[in-house]
Protein backbone atom coordinates (compact mmCIF):
# COMPACT_ATOMS: atom_id res chain seq x y z
CA UNK A 1 0.00 0.00 0.00
CA UNK A 2 2.86 2.36 0.90
CA UNK A 3 4.49 1.65 -2.47
CA UNK A 4 1.22 2.45 -4.27
CA UNK A 5 0.80 5.65 -2.26
CA UNK A 6 4.38 6.71 -3.02
CA UNK A 7 3.92 5.94 -6.72
CA UNK A 8 0.70 7.96 -6.84
CA UNK A 9 2.31 10.90 -5.05
CA UNK A 10 5.35 10.85 -7.36
CA UNK A 11 3.16 10.59 -10.47
CA UNK A 12 0.95 13.46 -9.30
CA UNK A 13 4.07 15.53 -8.53
CA UNK A 14 5.59 14.89 -11.97
CA UNK A 15 2.30 15.68 -13.67
CA UNK A 16 1.84 18.86 -11.64
CA UNK A 17 5.41 19.92 -12.45
CA UNK A 18 4.79 19.49 -16.17
CA UNK A 19 1.24 20.83 -16.35
CA UNK A 20 1.86 23.93 -14.24
CA UNK A 21 4.85 24.94 -16.30
CA UNK A 22 4.59 28.67 -15.64
CA UNK A 23 4.55 28.17 -11.88
CA UNK A 24 7.36 25.59 -12.13
CA UNK A 25 9.49 27.88 -14.27
CA UNK A 26 9.13 30.87 -11.95
CA UNK A 27 10.00 28.74 -8.91
CA UNK A 28 13.02 27.27 -10.72
CA UNK A 29 14.14 30.75 -11.80
CA UNK A 30 14.13 32.09 -8.24
CA UNK A 31 15.75 28.94 -6.87
CA UNK A 32 18.45 29.17 -9.56
CA UNK A 33 19.25 32.72 -8.44
CA UNK A 34 19.53 31.53 -4.84
CA UNK A 35 21.74 28.58 -5.74
CA UNK A 36 23.88 30.88 -7.90
CA UNK A 37 24.41 33.15 -4.89
CA UNK A 38 25.46 30.10 -2.86
CA UNK A 39 27.84 28.97 -5.64
CA UNK A 40 29.28 32.47 -5.96
CA UNK A 41 29.95 32.48 -2.21
CA UNK A 42 31.52 29.04 -2.48
CA UNK A 43 33.91 30.35 -5.16
CA UNK A 44 34.58 33.71 -3.51
CA UNK A 45 35.47 31.96 -0.31
CA UNK A 46 37.92 29.74 -2.21
CA UNK A 47 39.50 32.74 -3.95
CA UNK A 48 39.71 34.58 -0.65
CA UNK A 49 41.27 31.63 1.20
CA UNK A 50 43.70 31.00 -1.63
CA UNK A 51 44.79 34.64 -1.79
CA UNK A 52 45.23 34.77 1.98
CA UNK A 53 47.25 31.57 1.86
CA UNK A 54 49.49 33.12 -0.73
CA UNK A 55 50.02 36.14 1.49
CA UNK A 56 50.54 33.90 4.53
CA UNK A 57 53.15 31.89 2.71
CA UNK A 58 55.07 35.01 1.99
CA UNK A 59 55.29 35.73 5.67
CA UNK A 60 57.94 33.78 7.55
CA UNK A 61 60.20 34.23 10.53
CA UNK A 62 63.82 34.02 9.54
CA UNK A 63 66.59 32.93 11.84
CA UNK A 64 69.88 34.32 10.53
CA UNK A 65 73.08 32.61 11.63
CA UNK A 66 76.52 34.01 12.08
CA UNK A 67 78.90 33.22 9.27
CA UNK A 68 80.80 30.86 11.56
CA UNK A 69 77.74 28.77 12.59
CA UNK A 70 78.31 25.08 11.84
CA UNK A 71 76.01 22.91 9.76
CA UNK A 72 75.49 20.75 12.85
CA UNK A 73 74.32 23.69 14.99
CA UNK A 74 71.89 24.78 12.28
CA UNK A 75 70.70 21.22 11.78
CA UNK A 76 69.92 20.84 15.49
CA UNK A 77 67.92 24.07 15.58
CA UNK A 78 66.09 23.10 12.40
CA UNK A 79 65.13 19.76 13.91
CA UNK A 80 63.86 21.41 17.09
CA UNK A 81 61.86 23.99 15.14
CA UNK A 82 60.34 21.32 12.92
CA UNK A 83 59.22 19.53 16.09
CA UNK A 84 57.14 22.52 17.26
CA UNK A 85 53.40 21.98 16.83
CA UNK A 86 52.88 25.53 15.51
CA UNK A 87 55.42 25.14 12.73
CA UNK A 88 54.30 24.20 9.23
CA UNK A 89 57.69 24.14 7.54
CA UNK A 90 61.32 25.09 8.04
CA UNK A 91 63.41 25.81 4.96
CA UNK A 92 67.18 25.97 5.18
CA UNK A 93 69.16 28.41 3.04
CA UNK A 94 72.88 27.78 3.07
CA UNK A 95 75.51 30.55 2.95
CA UNK A 96 76.31 29.72 -0.67
CA UNK A 97 72.69 29.73 -1.62
CA UNK A 98 72.19 33.10 0.10
CA UNK A 99 75.08 34.49 -1.93
CA UNK A 100 73.70 33.08 -5.17
CA UNK A 101 70.24 34.45 -4.40
CA UNK A 102 71.68 37.87 -3.66
CA UNK A 103 73.64 37.88 -6.90
CA UNK A 104 70.60 36.87 -8.90
CA UNK A 105 68.50 39.52 -7.26
CA UNK A 106 71.08 42.22 -8.02
CA UNK A 107 72.14 40.86 -11.39
CA UNK A 108 71.70 44.28 -13.01
CA UNK A 109 73.31 46.26 -10.22
CA UNK A 110 76.97 46.27 -11.11
CA UNK A 111 77.98 48.57 -8.29
CA UNK A 112 76.64 46.23 -5.61
CA UNK A 113 78.14 43.16 -7.25
CA UNK A 114 81.47 44.91 -7.50
CA UNK A 115 81.35 45.82 -3.81
CA UNK A 116 80.61 42.18 -3.01
CA UNK A 117 83.58 41.01 -5.04
CA UNK A 118 85.85 43.44 -3.26
CA UNK A 119 84.93 41.87 0.05
CA UNK A 120 86.61 38.67 -1.08
CA UNK A 121 84.58 36.47 1.27
CA UNK A 122 80.95 35.46 1.49
CA UNK A 123 79.36 37.92 3.95
CA UNK A 124 76.07 36.07 4.17
CA UNK A 125 75.15 33.73 6.99
CA UNK A 126 72.93 30.71 6.55
CA UNK A 127 69.27 31.11 7.54
CA UNK A 128 66.16 29.13 8.42
CA UNK A 129 62.80 30.33 7.14
CA UNK A 130 60.07 29.23 9.56
CA UNK A 131 56.49 29.18 8.29
CA UNK A 132 53.77 28.85 10.94
CA UNK A 133 50.56 26.90 10.47
CA UNK A 134 48.68 30.06 11.37
CA UNK A 135 49.90 33.64 11.24
CA UNK A 136 48.75 34.16 14.83
CA UNK A 137 51.33 31.60 15.98
CA UNK A 138 54.41 33.55 14.93
CA UNK A 139 54.54 35.20 18.31
CA UNK A 140 54.72 31.81 20.07
CA UNK A 141 57.44 30.63 17.70
CA UNK A 142 59.37 33.87 18.18
CA UNK A 143 59.19 33.51 21.96
CA UNK A 144 60.53 29.95 21.67
CA UNK A 145 63.45 31.35 19.72
CA UNK A 146 64.17 34.12 22.21
CA UNK A 147 67.44 33.85 24.06
CA UNK A 148 67.28 31.73 27.20
CA UNK A 149 64.09 29.88 26.15
CA UNK A 150 65.96 26.63 25.80
CA UNK A 151 65.19 25.84 22.20
CA UNK A 152 68.41 27.29 20.90
CA UNK A 153 70.43 25.75 23.75
CA UNK A 154 74.18 25.78 23.21
CA UNK A 155 73.70 27.00 19.66
CA UNK A 156 72.29 30.34 20.86
CA UNK A 157 75.58 32.02 20.21
CA UNK A 158 75.52 31.05 16.57
CA UNK A 159 72.31 33.01 15.89
CA UNK A 160 72.88 36.43 14.45
CA UNK A 161 69.32 37.75 14.52
CA UNK A 162 65.67 36.78 14.26
CA UNK A 163 63.59 39.06 12.09
CA UNK A 164 60.21 38.51 13.81
CA UNK A 165 60.21 41.81 15.64
CA UNK A 166 60.79 43.74 12.40
CA UNK A 167 57.79 41.89 10.87
CA UNK A 168 55.60 42.03 13.96
CA UNK A 169 53.55 45.03 12.80
CA UNK A 170 52.82 43.54 9.37
CA UNK A 171 51.93 40.16 10.88
CA UNK A 172 49.57 41.79 13.38
CA UNK A 173 47.92 43.75 10.58
CA UNK A 174 47.50 40.60 8.51
CA UNK A 175 45.98 38.81 11.49
CA UNK A 176 43.54 41.67 11.95
CA UNK A 177 42.54 41.63 8.29
CA UNK A 178 42.00 37.85 8.34
CA UNK A 179 39.89 38.05 11.50
CA UNK A 180 37.88 40.97 10.21
CA UNK A 181 37.20 39.54 6.74
CA UNK A 182 36.22 36.20 8.24
CA UNK A 183 33.64 37.88 10.47
CA UNK A 184 32.31 40.11 7.69
CA UNK A 185 32.23 37.15 5.28
CA UNK A 186 30.37 35.03 7.80
CA UNK A 187 27.67 37.64 8.45
CA UNK A 188 27.40 38.55 4.77
CA UNK A 189 26.78 34.93 3.84
CA UNK A 190 24.21 34.58 6.65
CA UNK A 191 22.39 37.71 5.42
CA UNK A 192 22.47 36.59 1.78
CA UNK A 193 21.30 33.08 2.58
CA UNK A 194 18.48 34.41 4.77
CA UNK A 195 17.41 36.85 2.06
CA UNK A 196 17.45 34.08 -0.54
CA UNK A 197 15.44 31.81 1.75
CA UNK A 198 12.80 34.52 2.16
CA UNK A 199 12.60 35.08 -1.61
CA UNK A 200 12.30 31.35 -2.34
CA UNK A 201 9.73 30.90 0.43
CA UNK A 202 7.61 33.76 -0.86
CA UNK A 203 7.76 32.59 -4.48
CA UNK A 204 6.70 29.06 -3.54
CA UNK A 205 4.09 30.45 -1.15
CA UNK A 206 2.60 32.48 -4.00
CA UNK A 207 2.71 29.44 -6.29
CA UNK A 208 0.86 27.34 -3.72
CA UNK A 209 -1.58 30.18 -2.99
CA UNK A 210 -2.92 29.50 -6.50
CA UNK A 211 -3.83 25.98 -5.34
CA UNK A 212 -5.54 26.92 -2.08
CA UNK A 213 -9.03 26.07 -3.40
CA UNK A 214 -7.83 22.79 -4.84
CA UNK A 215 -6.24 21.85 -1.54
CA UNK A 216 -9.56 22.55 0.20
CA UNK A 217 -11.40 20.36 -2.34
CA UNK A 218 -8.85 17.59 -1.91
CA UNK A 219 -9.49 17.69 1.84
CA UNK A 220 -13.26 17.62 1.26
CA UNK A 221 -13.09 14.56 -0.99
CA UNK A 222 -11.26 12.74 1.78
CA UNK A 223 -7.57 13.05 0.89
CA UNK A 224 -5.17 12.74 3.80
CA UNK A 225 -2.72 15.57 4.51
CA UNK A 226 0.19 13.42 3.32
CA UNK A 227 -1.59 12.64 0.06
CA UNK A 228 -2.08 16.37 -0.56
CA UNK A 229 1.38 17.46 0.58
CA UNK A 230 3.26 14.68 -1.23
CA UNK A 231 3.01 15.96 -4.82
CA UNK A 232 4.04 19.47 -3.69
CA UNK A 233 7.14 17.94 -2.07
CA UNK A 234 7.91 16.03 -5.29
CA UNK A 235 7.51 19.24 -7.30
CA UNK A 236 9.78 21.11 -4.85
CA UNK A 237 12.47 18.41 -5.24
CA UNK A 238 12.19 18.71 -9.02
CA UNK A 239 12.57 22.50 -8.80
CA UNK A 240 15.76 21.98 -6.78
CA UNK A 241 17.13 19.37 -9.22
CA UNK A 242 16.52 21.50 -12.29
CA UNK A 243 17.79 24.66 -10.56
CA UNK A 244 20.99 22.81 -9.57
CA UNK A 245 21.59 21.67 -13.15
CA UNK A 246 20.97 25.19 -14.50
CA UNK A 247 23.26 26.74 -11.88
CA UNK A 248 26.08 24.34 -12.78
CA UNK A 249 25.48 24.97 -16.48
CA UNK A 250 25.81 28.72 -15.86
CA UNK A 251 28.92 28.45 -13.69
CA UNK A 252 30.82 26.01 -15.94
CA UNK A 253 31.39 28.51 -18.77
CA UNK A 254 31.35 31.45 -16.34
CA UNK A 255 34.30 30.08 -14.36
CA UNK A 256 36.25 29.42 -17.59
CA UNK A 257 35.72 33.04 -18.60
CA UNK A 258 36.51 34.42 -15.14
CA UNK A 259 39.67 32.27 -14.94
CA UNK A 260 40.91 33.70 -18.24
CA UNK A 261 40.35 37.22 -16.99
CA UNK A 262 41.74 36.82 -13.48
CA UNK A 263 44.43 34.15 -13.50
CA UNK A 264 47.14 36.80 -13.00
CA UNK A 265 45.16 38.90 -10.61
CA UNK A 266 44.53 36.03 -8.17
CA UNK A 267 48.15 34.99 -7.94
CA UNK A 268 47.76 32.16 -10.38
CA UNK A 269 44.59 30.64 -8.96
CA UNK A 270 42.55 28.71 -11.54
CA UNK A 271 38.92 29.25 -10.50
CA UNK A 272 37.59 26.89 -13.13
CA UNK A 273 39.98 24.16 -11.99
CA UNK A 274 38.84 24.73 -8.40
CA UNK A 275 35.19 24.56 -9.57
CA UNK A 276 35.81 21.26 -11.36
CA UNK A 277 37.88 19.79 -8.50
CA UNK A 278 35.08 20.52 -6.06
CA UNK A 279 32.14 19.79 -8.36
CA UNK A 280 30.95 16.78 -6.36
CA UNK A 281 30.83 18.62 -3.05
CA UNK A 282 29.33 21.66 -4.80
CA UNK A 283 26.56 19.51 -6.31
CA UNK A 284 25.99 18.11 -2.82
CA UNK A 285 25.75 21.57 -1.26
CA UNK A 286 23.43 22.86 -4.01
CA UNK A 287 21.16 19.82 -3.96
CA UNK A 288 20.86 19.71 -0.19
CA UNK A 289 20.29 23.45 0.19
CA UNK A 290 17.97 23.61 -2.84
CA UNK A 291 15.88 20.64 -1.77
CA UNK A 292 15.70 21.79 1.85
CA UNK A 293 14.76 25.33 0.86
CA UNK A 294 12.09 24.30 -1.63
CA UNK A 295 10.61 21.46 0.43
CA UNK A 296 10.45 23.43 3.68
CA UNK A 297 8.91 26.40 1.86
CA UNK A 298 6.32 24.10 0.25
CA UNK A 299 5.45 22.42 3.52
CA UNK A 300 5.03 25.74 5.30
CA UNK A 301 2.94 27.14 2.45
CA UNK A 302 0.66 24.07 2.15
CA UNK A 303 0.22 23.75 5.90
CA UNK A 304 -1.81 26.94 5.98
CA UNK A 305 -4.41 25.57 3.54
CA UNK A 306 -4.66 22.12 5.10
CA UNK A 307 -6.58 23.48 8.07
CA UNK A 308 -9.97 22.72 6.51
Amino acid at each position, binding site marked *: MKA*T*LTRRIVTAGLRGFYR*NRTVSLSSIFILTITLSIITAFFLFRAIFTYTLDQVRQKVDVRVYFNTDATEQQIGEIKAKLTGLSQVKSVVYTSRDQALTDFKEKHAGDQLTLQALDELGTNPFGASLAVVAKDTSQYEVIASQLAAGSGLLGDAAGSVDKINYYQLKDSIDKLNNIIGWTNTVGFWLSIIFVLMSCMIVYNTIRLAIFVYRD*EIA*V*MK*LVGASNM*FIRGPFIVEAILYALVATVITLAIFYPATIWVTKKTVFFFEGMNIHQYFMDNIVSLIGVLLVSGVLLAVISSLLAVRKYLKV
Partner: protein
Amino acid sequence: MLYFDKVSKEYENRNKVLDNISLTVHKGELVSIVGHSGAGKTTLIKLLLAEEYPTEGTVSFHSDDIHSLRGRDMTEYRRKVGVVFQDFRLIPNKTAYENVAFAMEAAGKHDDEIEEDVPHVLDLVDLKGKMHHFPHQLSGGEQQRVAIARAIINRPEIIIADEPTGNLDPLNTYDIVQILKKINDLGTTVILTTHNKGIVDNLGRRVITMEDGRITRDQKSGKFTM
Protein backbone atom coordinates in the same frame (compact mmCIF):
# COMPACT_ATOMS: atom_id res chain seq x y z
CA MET B 1 -28.14 8.88 10.29
CA LEU B 2 -27.59 12.64 10.45
CA TYR B 3 -28.58 14.75 13.43
CA PHE B 4 -28.51 18.48 14.06
CA ASP B 5 -29.10 19.05 17.75
CA LYS B 6 -29.90 22.66 18.72
CA VAL B 7 -27.25 23.99 16.37
CA SER B 8 -26.51 27.72 16.21
CA LYS B 9 -23.82 29.50 14.25
CA GLU B 10 -22.82 33.06 14.86
CA TYR B 11 -20.00 34.97 13.15
CA GLU B 12 -18.17 37.79 14.89
CA ASN B 13 -20.20 41.04 14.98
CA ARG B 14 -22.99 39.46 12.96
CA ASN B 15 -26.39 38.10 13.55
CA LYS B 16 -26.96 34.43 14.02
CA VAL B 17 -26.79 32.71 10.62
CA LEU B 18 -28.21 29.54 12.12
CA ASP B 19 -30.50 29.71 15.12
CA ASN B 20 -31.25 26.64 17.18
CA ILE B 21 -31.58 24.14 14.33
CA SER B 22 -32.71 20.61 15.21
CA LEU B 23 -33.06 18.21 12.34
CA THR B 24 -32.80 14.50 11.57
CA VAL B 25 -32.07 13.00 8.15
CA HIS B 26 -32.76 9.27 7.78
CA LYS B 27 -30.92 6.79 5.61
CA GLY B 28 -32.16 6.75 2.01
CA GLU B 29 -33.96 10.10 2.16
CA LEU B 30 -33.76 12.79 -0.52
CA VAL B 31 -34.07 16.10 1.30
CA SER B 32 -34.29 19.47 -0.44
CA ILE B 33 -33.36 22.50 1.63
CA VAL B 34 -34.85 25.69 0.20
CA GLY B 35 -34.76 29.32 1.21
CA HIS B 36 -33.71 32.82 0.12
CA SER B 37 -30.05 33.81 -0.12
CA GLY B 38 -28.74 34.33 3.40
CA ALA B 39 -31.31 31.97 4.90
CA GLY B 40 -28.49 29.74 6.20
CA LYS B 41 -28.53 26.85 3.68
CA THR B 42 -24.86 27.06 2.75
CA THR B 43 -23.78 27.45 6.39
CA LEU B 44 -25.76 24.30 7.20
CA ILE B 45 -23.85 22.45 4.44
CA LYS B 46 -20.50 23.85 5.63
CA LEU B 47 -21.25 22.55 9.11
CA LEU B 48 -22.02 19.13 7.62
CA LEU B 49 -18.69 19.11 5.79
CA ALA B 50 -16.91 20.30 8.94
CA GLU B 51 -15.67 23.34 7.00
CA GLU B 52 -17.22 25.44 9.79
CA TYR B 53 -17.78 24.79 13.48
CA PRO B 54 -21.08 25.46 15.28
CA THR B 55 -21.20 28.10 18.00
CA GLU B 56 -23.66 25.96 19.93
CA GLY B 57 -25.09 22.45 19.57
CA THR B 58 -23.77 19.35 17.84
CA VAL B 59 -23.93 17.81 14.38
CA SER B 60 -23.71 14.00 14.47
CA PHE B 61 -23.20 11.40 11.76
CA HIS B 62 -24.54 8.12 13.17
CA SER B 63 -23.21 8.49 16.72
CA ASP B 64 -20.14 10.62 15.98
CA ASP B 65 -20.04 14.34 16.71
CA ILE B 66 -18.41 15.31 13.41
CA HIS B 67 -16.79 18.44 14.84
CA SER B 68 -14.83 16.44 17.35
CA LEU B 69 -13.31 14.20 14.64
CA ARG B 70 -9.60 14.72 14.07
CA GLY B 71 -6.99 13.57 11.53
CA ARG B 72 -7.68 10.11 10.16
CA ASP B 73 -11.23 10.01 11.60
CA MET B 74 -12.12 13.23 9.81
CA THR B 75 -10.62 11.90 6.55
CA GLU B 76 -12.66 8.69 6.95
CA TYR B 77 -15.84 10.67 7.59
CA ARG B 78 -15.28 12.79 4.47
CA ARG B 79 -14.90 9.65 2.38
CA LYS B 80 -18.41 8.64 3.49
CA VAL B 81 -19.80 11.98 2.32
CA GLY B 82 -19.83 12.88 -1.37
CA VAL B 83 -20.07 16.56 -2.12
CA VAL B 84 -21.16 18.54 -5.17
CA PHE B 85 -20.74 22.32 -5.30
CA GLN B 86 -22.46 25.01 -7.32
CA ASP B 87 -19.08 26.04 -8.81
CA PHE B 88 -18.08 22.39 -9.45
CA ARG B 89 -14.67 22.80 -7.77
CA LEU B 90 -12.85 20.38 -10.03
CA ILE B 91 -9.07 20.30 -9.92
CA PRO B 92 -8.22 22.33 -13.07
CA ASN B 93 -4.97 20.62 -14.01
CA LYS B 94 -6.46 17.12 -13.84
CA THR B 95 -8.58 15.52 -16.56
CA ALA B 96 -12.15 14.34 -15.89
CA TYR B 97 -10.79 10.82 -15.37
CA GLU B 98 -8.07 12.03 -12.99
CA ASN B 99 -10.48 14.19 -10.99
CA VAL B 100 -12.69 11.18 -10.34
CA ALA B 101 -9.76 8.80 -9.84
CA PHE B 102 -8.25 11.25 -7.32
CA ALA B 103 -11.04 10.57 -4.82
CA MET B 104 -10.42 6.81 -5.18
CA GLU B 105 -6.64 7.18 -4.93
CA ALA B 106 -7.07 9.35 -1.84
CA ALA B 107 -9.20 6.59 -0.34
CA GLY B 108 -6.40 4.10 -1.03
CA LYS B 109 -8.31 2.04 -3.60
CA HIS B 110 -6.42 -0.44 -5.79
CA ASP B 111 -5.40 0.47 -9.33
CA ASP B 112 -7.54 -2.33 -10.82
CA GLU B 113 -10.58 -1.03 -9.03
CA ILE B 114 -9.88 2.54 -10.16
CA GLU B 115 -9.38 1.48 -13.78
CA GLU B 116 -12.68 -0.40 -13.70
CA ASP B 117 -14.88 2.00 -11.70
CA VAL B 118 -13.89 5.41 -13.07
CA PRO B 119 -14.90 4.76 -16.72
CA HIS B 120 -18.04 3.06 -15.47
CA VAL B 121 -19.12 6.02 -13.33
CA LEU B 122 -18.19 8.51 -16.07
CA ASP B 123 -20.36 6.42 -18.38
CA LEU B 124 -23.21 6.68 -15.87
CA VAL B 125 -23.04 10.48 -16.07
CA ASP B 126 -22.73 10.21 -19.87
CA LEU B 127 -19.15 11.47 -20.09
CA LYS B 128 -17.23 8.42 -21.19
CA GLY B 129 -16.27 10.11 -24.45
CA LYS B 130 -14.75 13.10 -22.64
CA MET B 131 -12.82 11.21 -19.98
CA HIS B 132 -9.50 12.78 -20.90
CA HIS B 133 -10.74 16.33 -21.24
CA PHE B 134 -9.59 18.96 -18.77
CA PRO B 135 -12.31 20.93 -16.91
CA HIS B 136 -11.77 24.01 -19.10
CA GLN B 137 -12.56 21.87 -22.14
CA LEU B 138 -15.95 20.87 -20.71
CA SER B 139 -19.26 22.79 -20.51
CA GLY B 140 -20.76 23.73 -17.13
CA GLY B 141 -23.18 20.81 -17.21
CA GLU B 142 -20.39 18.39 -18.10
CA GLN B 143 -18.19 19.73 -15.33
CA GLN B 144 -21.01 19.27 -12.84
CA ARG B 145 -21.46 15.69 -14.03
CA VAL B 146 -17.75 15.07 -13.41
CA ALA B 147 -18.23 16.52 -9.92
CA ILE B 148 -21.13 14.14 -9.33
CA ALA B 149 -19.08 11.21 -10.61
CA ARG B 150 -16.33 12.20 -8.17
CA ALA B 151 -18.86 12.47 -5.35
CA ILE B 152 -20.33 9.01 -5.90
CA ILE B 153 -17.22 7.07 -6.90
CA ASN B 154 -16.40 5.90 -3.35
CA ARG B 155 -20.03 4.83 -2.77
CA PRO B 156 -20.62 7.35 0.01
CA GLU B 157 -23.49 6.98 2.47
CA ILE B 158 -24.60 10.50 1.80
CA ILE B 159 -24.37 13.00 -1.08
CA ILE B 160 -24.47 16.69 -0.29
CA ALA B 161 -25.27 18.89 -3.27
CA ASP B 162 -25.00 22.63 -2.59
CA GLU B 163 -26.95 24.46 -5.32
CA PRO B 164 -25.69 21.95 -7.91
CA THR B 165 -27.76 23.48 -10.70
CA GLY B 166 -27.18 27.13 -9.80
CA ASN B 167 -24.83 27.71 -12.75
CA LEU B 168 -26.63 25.50 -15.29
CA ASP B 169 -29.21 25.95 -18.04
CA PRO B 170 -32.63 24.22 -17.72
CA LEU B 171 -31.64 21.19 -19.82
CA ASN B 172 -28.50 20.50 -17.81
CA THR B 173 -30.43 21.21 -14.60
CA TYR B 174 -32.93 18.52 -15.52
CA ASP B 175 -30.09 16.04 -16.28
CA ILE B 176 -28.30 16.70 -13.00
CA VAL B 177 -31.48 16.32 -10.96
CA GLN B 178 -32.26 13.04 -12.73
CA ILE B 179 -28.79 11.75 -11.87
CA LEU B 180 -29.18 12.75 -8.21
CA LYS B 181 -32.59 11.08 -8.14
CA LYS B 182 -31.13 7.91 -9.62
CA ILE B 183 -28.37 7.92 -7.00
CA ASN B 184 -31.01 8.24 -4.30
CA ASP B 185 -33.09 5.45 -5.81
CA LEU B 186 -30.04 3.22 -5.48
CA GLY B 187 -30.08 3.85 -1.71
CA THR B 188 -27.78 6.80 -1.12
CA THR B 189 -29.06 9.62 1.06
CA VAL B 190 -29.09 12.94 -0.82
CA ILE B 191 -29.22 16.42 0.67
CA LEU B 192 -29.82 19.12 -1.90
CA THR B 193 -29.95 22.87 -1.42
CA THR B 194 -31.59 24.84 -4.20
CA HIS B 195 -33.39 28.00 -5.28
CA ASN B 196 -35.09 26.21 -8.12
CA LYS B 197 -38.83 25.82 -7.57
CA GLY B 198 -39.23 23.48 -10.55
CA ILE B 199 -36.73 20.97 -9.21
CA VAL B 200 -38.30 20.79 -5.77
CA ASP B 201 -41.86 20.55 -7.03
CA ASN B 202 -40.96 17.81 -9.53
CA LEU B 203 -39.07 15.73 -6.99
CA GLY B 204 -42.03 15.52 -4.63
CA ARG B 205 -39.78 14.52 -1.72
CA ARG B 206 -39.02 15.96 1.74
CA VAL B 207 -38.59 19.76 1.70
CA ILE B 208 -37.09 21.84 4.51
CA THR B 209 -37.68 25.58 4.22
CA MET B 210 -35.30 27.98 5.95
CA GLU B 211 -35.67 31.66 6.76
CA ASP B 212 -33.26 33.88 8.72
CA GLY B 213 -31.32 30.90 10.05
CA ARG B 214 -34.36 29.01 11.25
CA ILE B 215 -36.33 26.06 9.90
CA THR B 216 -39.80 27.39 9.19
CA ARG B 217 -41.27 24.35 7.47
CA ASP B 218 -40.36 20.65 7.19
CA GLN B 219 -42.71 18.68 4.90
CA LYS B 220 -42.48 14.97 4.11
CA SER B 221 -43.58 15.45 0.53
CA GLY B 222 -43.41 19.15 -0.01
CA LYS B 223 -43.47 21.92 -2.55
CA PHE B 224 -41.35 25.02 -2.92
CA THR B 225 -43.21 27.64 -0.85
CA MET B 226 -41.76 30.82 0.62
